[in-house]
């Protein structure tokens, strides 16, 4: 039983990890960022490349990937997103283009292959990202087998969620973000630099995607299109949880992850996934504002 719960918990933590960044960029800023998955991918590649060239391990790769993805996110916000605030579907379409662009850039090794320069670790092939040995060896505590890598992901996800909560609800920056989220014009009229704060917020959400990328690289193939499949799951979690509600996102990730885990064990993964989609559709039909959404949007 504890085994099943642990599987559910680890599924939840992955979902939350991906949804956390989205709950910022979508929830707070009304941007459907289809390139979120590609920011995850960039985080994963940062981990691979920093391991190859800088000899960084997982722990050092985390902050680096955060910075790199945040940087890319910032650039995307400055060049594209900021012209599209308030046009939610247009953000979806434009970032869809960004997603294609980023994927193809990685595949083309930043265009270097045109000049016959090859960057080892980039390009179309699979990449391998090593995880530290002590995170891959199981050990027993009180008869319960601890899977250190999964546990590490769970702990880090909880820490990141707490950090995000703290930033959003306990800092002046967070107040400004939440004010912009509710009413950008009034926020501006109150002296909040909406452009700058939005850019930083977007960068923060993107950075979280980068961190997710490093952790995913620990158990997933690192390939240019690894982000495609995660972004939809992320959106489902955020919408079910309620746009703009961090607690809702947390709860929805927990619930959907557990449903997935329990049914995967009882039946199989395909049925479990189908049930998760069914639950998502049902929940949105019944509560379009999500489990904890506020109504103003």
């Amino acid at each position, binding site marked *: 039983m504890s085994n099943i719960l642990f599987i559910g918990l680890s599924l939840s933590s992955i979902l939350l990890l991906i949804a956390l960044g989205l709950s910022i960029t979508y929830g707070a800023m009304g941007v459907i960022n289809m390139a979120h998955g590609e920011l995850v991918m960039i985080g994963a590649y940062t981990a691979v490349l920093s391991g190859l060239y800088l000899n960084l391990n997982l722990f050092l790769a985390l902050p680096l990937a955060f910075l790199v993805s945040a940087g890319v996110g910032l650039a995307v916000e400055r060049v594209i997103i900021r012209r599209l605030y308030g046009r939610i579907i247009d953000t979806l379409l434009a970032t869809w283009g960004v997603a294609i662009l980023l994927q193809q850039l990685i595949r083309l090794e930043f265009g270097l292959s045109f000049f016959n320069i090859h960057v080892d670790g980039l390009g179309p092939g699979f990449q391998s990202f090593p995880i530290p040995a002590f995170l891959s060896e199981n050990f027993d505590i009180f008869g319960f087998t601890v899977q250190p890598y999964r546990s590490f992901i769970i702990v880090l996800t909880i820490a990141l969620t707490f950090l995000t909560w703290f930033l959003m609800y306990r800092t*002046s920056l967070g*107040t*400004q973000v*939440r*004010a912009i989220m*509710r*009413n950008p*014009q*009034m*926020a*501006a*009229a*109150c*002296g*909040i*630099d*909406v*452009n700058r704060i939005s850019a930083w917020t977007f960068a923060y959400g993107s950075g979280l995607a980068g961190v997710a990328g490093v952790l995913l690289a620990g158990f997933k193939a690192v390939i240019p299109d690894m982000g495609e499949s995660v972004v939809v799951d992320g959106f489902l979690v955020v919408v079910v949880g309620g746009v703009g509600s961090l607690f809702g996102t947390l709860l929805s990730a927990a619930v959907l992850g557990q449903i997935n885990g329990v049914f995967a064990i009882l039946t199989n993964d395909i049925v479990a996934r189908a049930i998760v989609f069914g639950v998502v559709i049902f929940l949105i039909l019944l509560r379009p504002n999500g489990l904890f959404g*506020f109504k*103003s949007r």
Partner: protein
Amino acid sequence: MLDVKNLNSFYGRSKAIQDLSIKVLDGAVFAVLGRNGVGKTTLLRTILGLTDKCEGSIKLNGTEITDKPTFERARAGVAYVPQGRMIIPDFSIKDNILMGGFASSKGRRIPDLVAELFPYLMENLERPGGVLSGGQQQQLAIARALASDPKLLLMDEPTEGIQPNIVEQIEECITRLNRELKLTIVLVEQNVDFARKAASHFAMIENGTCKVDGKIEALTAKIVSQYMTI
């Protein structure tokens, strides 16, 4: 204080303000009057830079602010009490007031005057803004504007949809702000009686442009009937 010249302002393709010029003197309470939809609210929003595009000149204390972003105008001392109040319902009263503080050079704090003017708000600082009545929300919106330590206060129909007894309080409040804090106030109004009591100057707007302006004493019944009756 505020000098608006040859202002044109747009929502998308449509022009809402046409070649409008007004001058608001330091310390004045300036009433902007006119029928529904003539561009009164748009004028306030244009002063704050909240419309899509504007041409012409807006000077605040002699400084050109036409091309500045909204938040800089707010930090330069323009505060806004919008139509519908725009209180953030799930922020506490305290957070709502402190929001204004982002524009203040003195840091984010609740001004003493707020405590004096609105004791009810001070007693309920932790309650969410959404539960307040219309009049209380209006007070909250004013408190928020005051928290930004403003020089110029833009108020959009502060008496709209509010019980008569509270209207008096708000009128008194405006007068005190004007006298004690030396605040210049631009007041958009439909209620001519209220404007006559509270304002020192007026401008009559039609079709996005200023038709008549001057001291409030010059607001004759004829002008009112010409531009405001339907």
